[in-house]
């Protein structure tokens, strides 16, 4: 297990570098792209008043000084105070995390549980009507803009047929439409990747061998094909999961879901630097955790990958 420990330590070190780089880029870009003060004050505030507020927020100091203060504070776990909410920024960002995870995980589960079986069946029954129908749907799912799909769901399923609430967060019924909307894209791309990965393996010699030695179709598909096709499926699934957690801005906006993507975008508009930093930090940590998990899963599924890792 010493190899695994070294591997983990190396990955954690890289993760820290990544976090530092991400924070720095966001710090610089945010400060170069605009000023929160005019957004806070009424439009008739005089220049002196602007300068006073800038001073109070520490925005009048040179950028390197602001950066040093920022880094020092982050190392102590202090992400600053939200300019918009007047509360600790990390506290604000973390209060959005449960809603984000709830929506992201459910959308992900819907996507995977539907997409993988569809992809497998499409591959086995290649060029059948079922395959064409499934892949046609996948194409539509992948190319429909999220806001359109979301509003369509609201108008048809919520308003016309009264099956679900239109928007907001509450019991499980509130979760269905946004999760389906958010999951649609991931579902489509996972289904397509699953299908092509399966087809690739189905063509391989060892599958012909397996069939030749008289194995049942289920064993061929489940044990030999799916397991060997798992790596690309796992990769796309992991990437999609990260995206579902971090990039759900439009879905969250359409369904008034109190998630972190929406918070991040609003904070960017408000130039609320500390909250942007906090949400990006959380998103980066989530991505790093997901990638790490994937790497470990690769090793479990395919022993060959273990040797190639440092």
């Amino acid at each position: 297990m010493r190899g695994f420990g070294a591997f983990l330590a190396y990955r954690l070190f890289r993760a820290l570098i990544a976090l530092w780089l991400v924070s720095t880029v966001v710090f610089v870009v945010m400060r170069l792209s605009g000023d929160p003060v005019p957004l806070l004050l009424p439009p008739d505030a005089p220049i002196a008043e602007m300068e006073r507020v800038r001073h109070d927020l520490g925005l009048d100091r040179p950028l390197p000084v602001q950066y040093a203060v920022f880094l020092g504070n982050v190392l102590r776990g202090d992400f600053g105070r939200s300019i918009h909410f007047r509360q600790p920024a990390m506290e604000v960002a973390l209060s959005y995390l449960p809603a984000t995870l709830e929506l992201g995980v459910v959308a992900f589960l819907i996507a995977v549980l539907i997409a993988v079986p569809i992809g497998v069946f499409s591959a086995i029954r290649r060029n059948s009507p079922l395959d064409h129908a499934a892949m046609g749907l996948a194409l539509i799912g992948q190319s429909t803009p999220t806001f359109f799909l979301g509003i369509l769901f609201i108008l048809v399923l919520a308003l016309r047929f009264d099956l679900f609430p239109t928007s907001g967060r509450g019991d499980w019924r509130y979760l269905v439409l946004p999760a389906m909307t958010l999951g649609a894209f991931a579902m489509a791309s996972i289904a397509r990747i699953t299908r092509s990965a399966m087809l690739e393996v189905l063509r391989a010699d060892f599958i012909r061998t397996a069939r030749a030695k008289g194995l049942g179709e289920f064993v061929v598909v489940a044990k030999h094909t799916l397991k060997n096709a798992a790596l690309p499926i796992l990769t796309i699934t992991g990437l999609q999961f990260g995206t579902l957690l971090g990039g759900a801005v439009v879905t969250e906006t359409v369904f008034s879901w109190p998630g972190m993507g929406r918070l991040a975008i609003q904070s960017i508009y408000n130039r609320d630097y500390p909250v942007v930093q906090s949400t990006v930090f959380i998103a980066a940590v989530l991505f790093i955790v997901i990638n790490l998990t994937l790497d470990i899963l690769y090793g479990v599924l395919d022993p060959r990958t273990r040797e190639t890792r440092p």
Partner: protein
Amino acid sequence: MTAGDPADGAVPPRRPTMQSDNRDSKALSRREFLGRAAVLSLTATGLLEAVRLGPAAAQTTQKRELIVAQGGDISKFDPHFSTSSNDIRVSFNIFDNLTSRRPNGKLYPALATRWARTAPTTWQFTLRQGVKWHNGDPFTSADAKFSIERTYDPAAKTLVSTVFTTIDRIEAPDASTLRVYTKKPDPLLPARLGFYGGQIVPKKYLEQVGPDQFNAKPVGTGPVRFVSWTKDDKLVLEAAPDYWAGKIDVDRVTFRPVPETAPRVAALLKGEVDAITQLVPDQWDRVNQNPTTRGVGALYAGLYVLAVNSKVKPLDNPLVKQAMSLAIDRTAIVKELWRGRGIVPNGPIAKGDNHFDPSLPPLPFDPPKARARLKEAGYKNEPIYIETTVGYVANDKPMAEAIAAMWKDVGINAVVEVIEYSVRAQKNRERSFKGVFWSDPTSTLGDPDGMMWRLLGPGGPQDYWRHPEFDALGNAARFSLDEKFRGEAYQKMTRIFLEHNPWIVVIQPNEDYGLQRYVEFTPNPNQQFDIRRFNFRMRRA
């Protein structure tokens, strides 16, 4: 965020709309523009039309809760730290002011029962007795004095420190009297006290718990008191049972942010919410045709204008600005883009304000005259930039495109550029606009002093143009106690204004709300969202 789903990475505008963010800055012809507007409205309206609703429900209710969906969430409770419309819709209900501007535009007693000028620079207020804060403490003149002084106290660092600059000092000789001394005569002080910055906060509680805790758990004297807030999800308030003006007609009030227009309207049509704010013109008919809902509107106490950076050539030439104004077909804009939910203004004073002159005709549309003015000005096809936002004010980008096309029709080289909201704020601060830009001047006092003079006056945020006579009149009117003199001054200022057009006034739109039919609500023109007995009631079964 670190990664964007290709299908989910589009960035919605600050007040999201269904418009595509087309950065094509080439002007469209009028017909193309109208065609595009029709296609866009198909996406939202068309879908809504395609969906039919069930039979009419009863027009009364058992509900004891009012659910309001607004376009964005609040940011904070402390009323002295925000002037945004989402925030003040809530803070004006948790807190009271000394005076209250009702939907009819007149000032009424609130925490002050009477006020009078006892000397040219002294206002004396008699405060209401027996009023209790939500935590049970009694309200006294000490709270009022503390509150107003807090707005401009450097140590409090509020964001409304410019509201009461005319005040010299305040005395509270006894528990129910407040005396305000102004630096010069200020006829509009009671009006100033009725709007933002004027919300009265509790001295004892605030000093006891500190500003952070006060902001987290606000205590006011208003008709509703704070219960809980989950950001971007829901804000729950309950009716104060012993409110001094009588308990309001529900037990609970919940505010929900629903940023997108289509879901907000859908939530209303379906009956999930009782009232929505920011009902767009596209959806006005839809909401009224639905048997259980209706729209109510009030003419906005303000104007939508293209403010002009008159320091840039050729906008320093009044003739060019006259041509720009004459070339705009405002009637078409009201009819096509606003579906009639607005009026063509007649000058810089909003209809409904003090000293609005009803005898002036609406701003004219006269392309031949516009061409003649351009010729007279020696206009040499210099580009004139419209820096528009998307959704900063309703319909800003479609209006900018329409106006650019109208300007092209008379030979003005109009260029539309789209800028982000925060970029607009920055340019506003630096006064670095390249040409004209959208502004929605609000009449904070129901008087031209709180609108045209506040914004266009020397040192004001839109100080791009100076005119000695205009300045002398504006200054004299601010400190004059003679309403006849003030009226004449504003008439003269209007004449000068229409010659020089420091704003190119475009429209006075409606502020529309959608309601369940059982909700009786009279909106306030100045975006104040009162939930009080004088304007709100539920029709019970």
